[in-house]
């Protein structure tokens, strides 16, 4: 049987469970894999600072899949998580078929569109889990990315994407990083991240 790609999985109308190598149905499974990523960075000689920051942002991004969808999964619960570490560069993919950013934030900001939803998620102290006072996770991710020497980050939800590269975007504000994702519609959230080891 042909392996389902992550892009196909997050765009499909009907959900199916991914292969066990990448599928994390529960929070404890993905946490164990994030810990494995951390060990991999340490073993490949990444600095303590980079290892700590990368583990933290991957931890935030994977936690979001569960925090905002628990009890709300439209079909397949959990997330897709995979990473590769070729010594000097780490690549990470995280995806879920949850309710997505706009649907989550619409409870506190009715009537917003996909673009506004990403702007709020990345720039404001607001969470779909109101009245809980939270909403720091994605701001933290951007704060960390802006400190790294070389990183690329894509975050897609609905018909919208945030695209960030340290080489071209380090001085840009959040709004200028967000655009429509050219006909691609993501169910839930789809994130890719590539980070180069600092010398």
């Amino acid at each position, binding site marked *: 049987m042909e392996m389902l790609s992550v892009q196909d999985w997050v765009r499909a109308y009907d959900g199916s469970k991914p292969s066990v190598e990448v599928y994390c149905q529960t929070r404890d499974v993905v946490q164990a894999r994030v810990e494995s990523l951390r060990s991999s960075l340490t073993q490949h000689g990444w600095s303590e600072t980079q290892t700590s920051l990368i583990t933290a942002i991957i931890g935030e991004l994977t936690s979001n899949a569960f925090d905002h969808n628990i009890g709300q999964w439209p079909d397949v619960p959990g997330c897709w998580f995979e990473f590769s570490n070729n010594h000097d560069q780490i690549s990470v993919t995280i995806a879920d078929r949850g309710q997505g950013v706009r649907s989550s934030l619409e409870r506190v900001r009715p009537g917003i569109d996909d673009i506004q939803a990403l702007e709020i998620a990345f720039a404001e102290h607001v969470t779909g889990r109101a009245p809980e006072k939270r909403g720091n996770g994605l*701001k933290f991710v951007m704060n960390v990315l802006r400190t790294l020497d070389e990183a690329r980050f894509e975050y897609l939800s609905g018909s919208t994407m945030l695209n960030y590269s340290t080489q071209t975007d380090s001085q840009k504000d959040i709004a200028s990083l967000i655009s429509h994702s050219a006909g691609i519609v993501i169910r839930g959230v789809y994130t890719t991240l590539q980070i180069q080891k600092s010398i």
Partner: protein
Amino acid sequence: MKLSMEKFGNVLISRPAGREAALAALAYSLPKEGDEAIELDFSNVDVLTPSWMDEFMQTLMERLPKSQIKITEGENASVQMTMKTIRETTH
């Protein structure tokens, strides 16, 4: 009194873990009464996220005033960035 946060683990990431840690601290580690200053020492923590910290602090502050709590960040980059992000979004 000083509370060494590494006692809750070196990698502090998820919301449920943050809440659980705060409930355990309130039950077993922190004084039940009085206004003694409480220092949260993150010196030996390897990874911290805002989600864990938000949950820990909000659970703690259900019983303790914020003014009673002092934070020692230490040198870890994710601890420092977590505190910076929380300061930026709450002030």
